[in-house]
């Protein structure tokens, strides 16, 4: 049976509460994983493992959190900002994330703000629909 968006949100919330040791009410749709919820790099893997279990899906690591590969490629990054090609790559790799605001000032330091609770929910929803 297909899960409703609310059920997905609730499940994602539970995963993040367990993985990051935060309170339910901190896990809002707009909360950023690193800035607001204090996630570190190993937490992203923990989250991926937990999401796979909770939803019974397979998540290739670079699919949900693809930024790392981008950040180290000089074709995509120039002077601490993403280039046009970098942005195009990001759009392609993160269709589950709204990057309109980021495009105005594609500063690498702000890349982390793209990883929000909502982005995870969108991603999982897309994954479940495709399955």
């Amino acid at each position, binding site marked *: 049976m297909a899960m409703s968006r609310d059920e997905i949100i609730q499940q994602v919330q539970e995963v993040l509460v367990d*993985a990051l040791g935060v309170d339910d009410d901190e896990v809002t749709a707009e909360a950023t994983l690193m800035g607001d919820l204090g996630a570190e*790099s*190993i*937490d992203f*893997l*923990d989250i991926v*493992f937990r999401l*796979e*279990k909770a939803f019974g899906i397979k998540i290739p*690591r670079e699919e949900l959190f693809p930024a790392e590969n981008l950040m180290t490629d000089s074709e995509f990054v120039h002077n601490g900002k993403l280039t046009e090609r970098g942005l195009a790559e990001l759009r392609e790799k993160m269709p589950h994330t709204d990057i309109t605001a980021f495009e105005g000032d594609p500063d690498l330091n702000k890349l982390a703000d793209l990883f929000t609770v909502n982005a995870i929910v969108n991603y999982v929803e897309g994954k479940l629909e495709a399955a």
Partner: protein
Amino acid sequence: MRWIWIDKFVEFESGRRAVALKNVTLAEEHLHDHFPGFPVMPECLMIEAMAQTSGILVGEAKKFQEKVILAKVKKAVFFDYVKPGDTIKLDAKIDSIISEAASTSGKITCEDKLIAEIDLMFSHIDQNLAGKEFPQENFVFDTGTSVFESLLRDVLSAGAGAADSEQDR
């Protein structure tokens, strides 16, 4: 010398599960201070024992080719004390393992009484922090270290040994 905090493996299913034993003795000096008149095994050292059990399980899964480090204590809940004279059983299993990392869950019991639940994450750092250099001596799985091999010899060769003795007959 490596600091080994488990005494032996009693079960070892490569890539899946490992069970180790640790005997707790009053000869361990820290027990005299923790606490005076009431010696109990410090909980952080139970995490260490589980980290060694799970860590060796994770390392062996990739034939000790990866540098495995403890990256996260996901859960550590303690239900009872461990006292001198107790033998604790550390039962660890791999929940997920990919090229960059592994996630494990474990239970510590003492005579079938649940002592602790400890879930951990390990990182294969060459896959995660490629290009950074770490001093080799920080790692326990380098080729010069045979101490883990001796810990594992009995459980890993048990299958092969049975086959050998079969042939001998």
